[in-house]
C-alpha cells in the first residue's frame, strides 16, 4: 500500500460558542454591548424629554413604566452589570501595576475597581436624585 498524504482540515461550526460553557459566557459578555448601546439610546431619549419641558418629562416617565419597557430595562440592567463585573474581574489579568517596586496583587486591583464603581455610582445617584 503506497503512502498517501492528505491533510484533513476540520471545519469550525458556526455554533462553536455553544460547545463550552466558558464560550457561552464569553459571547454573553460580548452581547452586553448591545444593551449598553440600547441604554445610551434610552438615556438620550430621557434627556431630550427633560429638555422639552415638564409635561414631556412626565409623559416620558409614564411611557418608561410600560411593562415591556421595564422588562427590557431589567434585562439590560443585568447585562450591563455583567459587563461591569467581568470588566472588574479581568482588570488584574490585563494590567500589572507596580507600587514602590512591588506588584499589586490581583484581588486588590479588582477590589479597587469595585470601590471606584461604588464611588462613581454614588456621585451619579446624588446628581440624579438630588
Amino acid at each position, binding site marked *: 500500500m503506497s503512502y498517501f498524504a492528505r491533510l*484533513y482540515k476540520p471545519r469550525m461550526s458556526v455554533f462553536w460558542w455553544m460547545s463550552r460553557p466558558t464560550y457561552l459566557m*464569553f459571547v454573553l459578555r460580548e452581547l452586553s454591548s448591545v444593551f449598553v448601546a440600547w441604554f445610551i439610546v434610552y438615556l438620550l431619549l430621557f434627556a431630550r424629554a427633560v429638555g422639552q419641558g415638564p409635561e414631556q418629562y412626565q409623559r416620558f416617565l409614564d411611557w418608561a413604566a410600560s411593562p415591556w419597557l421595564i422588562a427590557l430595562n431589567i434585562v439590560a440592567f443585568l447585562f450591563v452589570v455583567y459587563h461591569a463585573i467581568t470588566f472588574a474581574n479581568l482588570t488584574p489579568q*490585563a494590567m500589572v501595576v507596580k507600587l514602590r517596586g512591588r506588584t499589586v496583587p490581583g484581588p486588590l486591583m479588582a477590589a479597587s475597581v469595585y470601590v471606584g464603581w461604588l464611588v462613581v455610582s454614588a456621585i451619579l445617584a446624588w446628581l440624579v436624585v438630588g
Partner: protein
Amino acid sequence: MPENITLRVARYRPEQEEEPTFDEYAVPLNKDWSVLDGLNYIKDELDGTLSYRWSCRMGICGSCGASVNGQPKLTCATFLHDYAPGPVRIEPLANFPIIRDLVVELTDFMHKLGTVKPWIVREEEQPVEDGEYLQTPAELADYKQYSMCINCMLCYSACPVYGLDPHFIGPAAIALAQRYNLDNRDEGARDRLTVLNQPEGIWGCTFVGECSRACPKDVDPAGAIQRYKVTAAMATVKSLLMPWGER
C-alpha cells in the same frame, strides 16, 4: 473500580478513508494510569497501527497534546480514573489539520514562533570580557511566568479566534514574544512590535481567555496578550504624536 475503561480514539488513515472515524479499545483501568499509558497499552497490545506523539511522559516536553472529551489536554497529565466509568473520547488537538490519527500538522505555529524572534535580541553584543548580563530576581520575576511555555499548543486548540482564522498569530507566540520583551537583557521590542501590531497579530484577540484556562503550565497567555495590547497601543500613539523619536 471496574477492570477496564473504553477509549474511543479518533482514527484517520488518508490511504483508506476520506474523514476521521472512531475505533474503540478496552484498556485496563489502573489507578495511576494516564491517558497516555492507555494509548501506549493500545499500541503495544491491541493495535500497533495507532499513531500519536509523546516523549517525556511527565508534562514538560509538550508533545502529547490531544482533545480528551472535547477538552485540550496533555495525555500524560490526564488520568483515566478521572473519567471512569468512561468511555473516554480521544481526538487530535482541535483547530489543526490532521496528518494521521492523533498527529496534527504544527508547521503553522513553528513558522509564527519564528516571526516573533523568541531569543535575546541585542543591538550590540556585550564583549565577553565584560562578563554576564546581570539580572536581579525582581527583573527575572517580570517575565518568568511567560518562560514556562512548553509549546504544547493546547492554547491554540482552545482559542476560537485561531479556529476561525488560521492567520491569527495565536496565544503562545504572543506570550513568548512578551517573555523576551519583558526581559531586561533584550532590546528587540520594536522588531516584535512590527509583527504583532497587526489585525492578525494581537488585535485579533477578543480576550475569550480560554487559552489561559487550557494552559497546563499557568503561563496565562491571555494576560500576556492584554498587557501587550496596552504596550502596543501606547507605542502606536507615541509614534503618531512624536514621530521624531523613531530612528
